[in-house]
């Protein structure tokens, strides 16, 4: 069963790479997906980032009780936590819910209502026209959302720290530049590209292969989100073990 799914998933990915029937129409679809995934998810990403940043600052301060540890350490810890883990992983898990379920239900509905068949009969490669633009758009937009999430999270951590009187803005800024490793950004981006691929291709697979009616679309959508989340966490561990083991 699992091998069947893996095989069909691989065939779906292979089937996407054919010459487009009309580049302009593919570009139009790609831009539509960029707007759908990017602009459509921006508000939820901003809300999550604001609260994660704020909570990170307050909880870090709560745990750093030793007077010999400078307050600026809070800024450093929040920065690294946000960049290394919270922004790429939590943002992607939320996007798996928001974007993943949308992709699965959109394609599932197109399959059930014969819209995919209609495109096939016109001579259009539906894997290429419907799935590839979604994956490419996610690969472009999700890392952007992760970067925005990082900036907003770190900034809101500062606001939370200052407003609650934990540390001054100057102390927080000192912490932010302390022992900064640019590789952490590369690591966060590597994660976000991997997660972007997961949250677009897995729901596309489940949506594209729906059989039945409205009930099956809902089931496919749920399955797509659950499996995307599990794969994100597995990939998170794998990438951390692979790229941070010398750190």
């Amino acid at each position, binding site marked *: 069963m699992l091998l069947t799914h893996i095989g069909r998933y691989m065939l779906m990915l292979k089937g996407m790479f054919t010459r487009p029937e009309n580049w302009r129409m593919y570009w139009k679809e790609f831009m539509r997906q960029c707007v759908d995934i990017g602009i459509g998810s921006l508000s939820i990403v901003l809300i999550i980032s604001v609260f994660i940043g704020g909570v990170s600052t307050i909880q870090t301060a709560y745990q750093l009780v030793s007077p010999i540890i400078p307050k600026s350490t809070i800024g450093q810890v929040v920065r690294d936590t946000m960049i290394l883990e919270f922004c790429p992983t939590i943002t992607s898990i939320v996007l798996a819910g928001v974007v993943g379920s949308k992709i699965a239900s959109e394609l599932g509905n197109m399959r059930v209502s014969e*819209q995919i068949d209609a495109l096939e*009969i*016109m*001579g259009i490669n539906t894997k290429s026209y419907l799935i590839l633009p979604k994956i490419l758009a996610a690969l472009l937009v999700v890392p952007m959302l992760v970067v925005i999430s990082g900036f907003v999270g770190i900034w809101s951590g500062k606001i939370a720290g200052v407003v609650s009187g934990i540390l001054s803005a100057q102390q927080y800024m000192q912490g932010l530049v302390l022992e900064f490793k640019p590789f952490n950004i590369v690591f966060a981006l590597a994660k976000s590209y991997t997660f972007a691929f997961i949250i677009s291709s897995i729901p596309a697979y489940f949506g594209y292969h729906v059989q039945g009616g409205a009930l099956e679309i809902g089931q496919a959508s749920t399955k797509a989100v659950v499996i995307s989340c599990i794969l994100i966490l597995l990939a998170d561990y794998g990438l951390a073990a692979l790229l941070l083991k010398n750190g």
Partner: protein
Amino acid sequence: MIELKNVCKRFGDKEILKGISAIMEAGKANLIIGASGSGKTVLMKCMVGLLEVDAGEILYDGISFSSMSNAERKHIRKEIGMLFQGAALFDSMTVEQNVMFPLEMFSNLSYRERKKRVDACLARVNLQDAHKKYPAEISGGMKKRVGIARAIVLNPKYLFCDEPNSGLDPQTSMLIDKLIHEITVEYNITTVINTHDMNSVMEIGDHIVYLYEGKKQWEGSNKDIIFSKDEKLNQFIFASQFLQDAKEMRQQELLNQRSGTG
């Protein structure tokens, strides 16, 4: 013209199509009729390439479609229009965008030329005021008409209609039938229609293929059907007493006409 030669299709152990041979003629409404589960939809899906045949051959104007690769089929597919049972309109597009879609994908026409063609097709199906509406905002009959407009926008040589009357009231059904028949004759299209609707059979059935349990049971025209002695066909077509009486009246009318002209 589409020719079916000994077409067979099975799903697992179940044989759905058992060696069907028939000719779908150009400029005529070719109807495939039969009870639910007789293999009508599977046959149509095989004809348009959504399903592969297990044995036999499908020829489009003498060219074997079933032995072609996907890339080769693209050329024939551009000459195929299809009206689906639920119309299969793209939800995210307006009526105008739905009809324009095949033109945008496959033609090099300017926007003005595309618009002109779309307006002409929508006018042909008597839909002049629905350009900016979304599929969710129009009725079932209107959806079918938009589906027909989208199917004919690229001037196809072959038109397939899967149960065009399903879910429509009798009056709208007749309008859709009439429209399909007019378009078939006007553009000399090879039209293939899957239907259960007896009105369609009697009104537009230039050529009828009756399937029974995956086999071709009977073939003829809507005039021949009245005089058919095939028991299974008669049970299927003239199922009620009302239809039996109508059949006898029609038989008498035709016989009177023949003796009058003879």
